[in-house]
């Protein structure tokens, strides 16, 4: 027994030592250290901070929800067209639970939300029901679902335990070494993503490459295709639980006197083609369309299908990679969503806030 006790004592000592190091370096920016650069961006946390500051200036009345695919939708454009003060609260790898939790959290901050614009990814209804890491680690958002998940206190504790537990992985250790080495080399890398005060996303590196004409879209698209194969490889059906979150969101916004608009978010045509050939994407998309149509009939929410770029007047060039539209694509999508009228065609990568005049949009808004 003595031997076992000594071994366990050493295990605890190693855990404390490594845990302390990881917490201090904080390579994923989860503990607020800020002493080192971070390797990933926790959009949920960043946007919560940004939202608080934005809300302090004036009440937020409109929310753009969705995943990173909708991060390029400029709240300023929505504000200009609707007269409501919008914030883009889209977060990476958002699932249906994110939409509901974020709406409730924003409301809990005192925001009088009148309009919710939701870019729905088909995989946001993934049947695995697994919480994305950054959501799982976020006690504030997790507590917003406490009615569905059990006691709020326990959910918060579980989120924190999960955050600390997940530090002890080889990947986390590798990230720690990476940021320490970057600091040692005094590297000042251009951040991959950057949010403005209203939650709008910039890709500084990509935008510079675009401006310099060195951006390689083909390479970017092929690099991210495997991750989408991975996501859809395991998705067999729409999750009833996640569909429940979505429907609850719609009903809560409506009960609060607000308005919801939902659209199916787009994928690059190459991604759609690959997924259609190798996964159940086509069937899942069909099921999502049918379910949204039914939701629209039952609740009166506006639903649109922008699963492919031509549905909002875009094409295969308006992209940064296999799922993320660029500024031009985002402008087209925003205008179509807001059902704006006629004007000049947008220039590629023009900054949305400097966009002048309405866009030329032909055809119907592809309602379901």
């Amino acid at each position, binding site marked *: *027994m*003595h*031997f*076992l006790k*000594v*071994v*366990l*004592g*050493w*295990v605890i*000592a*190693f*855990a404390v030592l*490594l845990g302390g190091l990881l917490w201090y370096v904080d390579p994923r920016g989860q503990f607020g250290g800020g002493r080192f650069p971070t390797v990933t961006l926790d959009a949920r946390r960043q946007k919560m901070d940004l939202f608080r500051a934005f809300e302090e200036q004036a009440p937020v009345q409109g929310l753009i929800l969705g995943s990173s695919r909708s991060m390029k939708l400029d709240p300023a454009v929505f504000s200009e067209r609707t007269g409501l003060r919008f914030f883009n609260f889209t977060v990476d790898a958002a699932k249906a639970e994110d939409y509901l939790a974020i709406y409730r959290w924003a409301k809990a901050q005192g925001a009088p939300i009148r309009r919710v614009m939701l870019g729905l990814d088909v995989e946001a209804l993934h049947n695995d029901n697994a919480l994305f890491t950054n959501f799982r680690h976020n006690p504030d958002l997790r507590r917003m679902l406490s009615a569905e998940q059990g006691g709020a206190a326990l959910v918060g504790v579980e989120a924190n335990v999960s955050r600390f*537990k*997940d530090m*002890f*992985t*080889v*990947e986390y*250790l590798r990230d720690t070494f990476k940021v320490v080495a970057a600091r040692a080399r005094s590297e000042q890398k251009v951040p991959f993503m950057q949010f403005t005060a209203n939650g709008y996303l910039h890709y500084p590196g990509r935008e510079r490459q675009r401006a310099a004409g060195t951006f390689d879209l083909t390479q970017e698209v092929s690099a991210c295709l495997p991750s989408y194969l991975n996501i859809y*490889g395991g998705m067999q059906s729409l999750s009833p639980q996640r569909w429940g979150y979505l429907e609850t969101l719609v009903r809560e916004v409506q009960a609060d006197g607000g308005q919801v608009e939902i659209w199916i978010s787009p994928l690059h045509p190459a991604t759609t083609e690959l997924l259609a050939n190798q996964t159940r994407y086509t069937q899942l998309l069909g099921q999502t369309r049918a379910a949204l149509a039914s939701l629209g009939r039952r609740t009166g929410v506006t639903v649109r299908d922008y699963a492919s770029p031509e549905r909002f007047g875009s094409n295969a060039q308006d992209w940064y990679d296999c799922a993320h539209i660029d500024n031009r694509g985002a402008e087209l999508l925003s205008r179509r969503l807001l059902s704006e009228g006629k004007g000049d065609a947008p220039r590629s990568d023009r900054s949305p806030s400097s966009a002048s005049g309405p866009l030329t949009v032909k055809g119907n808004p592809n309602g379901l």
Partner: protein
Amino acid sequence: MVFNSDIFLFAFLPVVFALFWLLREKQARYILLTVSGYIFYGYWDWRFCFLMLFSSLVSFGSGLMIQRAQDQKTKRAWMIGTICVDLALLGFFKYYNFFAESLHAVAPAFAPPLLNIILPIGISFYTFHTISYVVDVAAGRVRATSNIFEYLTYVSLFSQLVAGPIVRFRQIEADLERIDKPPQTDQMALGVGFFAVGLIKKVVIADTIARMVDPMLANHENLSMLGAWMAALGYTFQLYFDFSGYSDMAVGLGYLFGIRIPQNFNAPYKALGIGDFWRRWHISLSSWLRDYLYISLGGNRKGPTRTNINLIIVMLLGGLWHGANWTFVIWGAYHGVLLVIDRALQPWLTRWPPLLYRWSTFLLVIVGWVFFRSESLPMALDWLGKMVGVGTGTGDIPQTLMVMCVLCFVAVNTLPETWDIRFPKTVRWAPVYALGLFLAYLFMNGANSTFLYYQF
């Protein structure tokens, strides 16, 4: 529950271990181990606990009846009756749909309906436990225990319940008898050592290889010739490090509770010949098949032809034991034929340079694993075809896989088997054990993996 899960490592094991040390009475420890075994098993699906309990009670009662029987005929009747019950359960849950589907394919008019049967995890293992018990009691190799909890402990011992090794009652009877004695300090060191080595084999090596091989095989139509070989080689190492890692962990856990679980692997990829391979690979299964099936069929006592037939029958059934799929049947038949050839050519093969003999054996084993891993016969044939250059694609081969395969090849040919490691038993080595466990946990944490042999 799996060994490499948080619930097992941070809740189940510490609680069971602490209670084991608090409860000093033999009977209390039997009850604790039995209850913990059923919780471990029921964590997957509690309903199947009743199936295991039924099988255990039947063999326990039968053991007592055999013990009390005055004549061989009665003993034999009890033994055969029990084996029939056990095999009926195994046959129904594991093979019913397989035979029904096969009949549907060849003679639909005679085929029974397909049923929605869930295969109870570990049924192949505990069925073999109970069969070996009644056979051993009937043969007088072991005395039937009259202590129901001692017997239930034997069948439901969580360390080897769902994926082996197949332990015979007589192998652990002495340890079960003295379970109330405190384990020696060196047993704790062995326990931690085996468990750490097993966990490292599993999460550091097997799981890393799996992450590269699985996607390749999911898209096997696109394998290049080299890719097909690398996938086969990768799986060869994955399976070995996965299953031998599990066995090491089972042995380690056994030591922590004062029970010595026998060796299940002995450097199988160093084997000289297929016969030697089966003396080194999944030893508890091959020795079970030898003692309870091959010898019962007459072994080598009825002439060379009958010996060969027996070998093929045993390997066929051994293949089928692994799963209700024609790929396993073919894998078993393949090894049966290889065993026959190996026996016939022994005088000639033994004159080969040992390294050449070893590596040709290894090559034959790799080819066999193609059937073992394939989900269907068409997949196996496609994969094998690509290995010989037929219908090859242009799929990528991860460079890490190649590096891992080279390292694993060197490791299995040079490093000692876990059982040959002389684990230091002094506390000054405790930091090394702790570091091993801690590093293994870093690899394990967050990864979602199970053991390959759970499916059998």
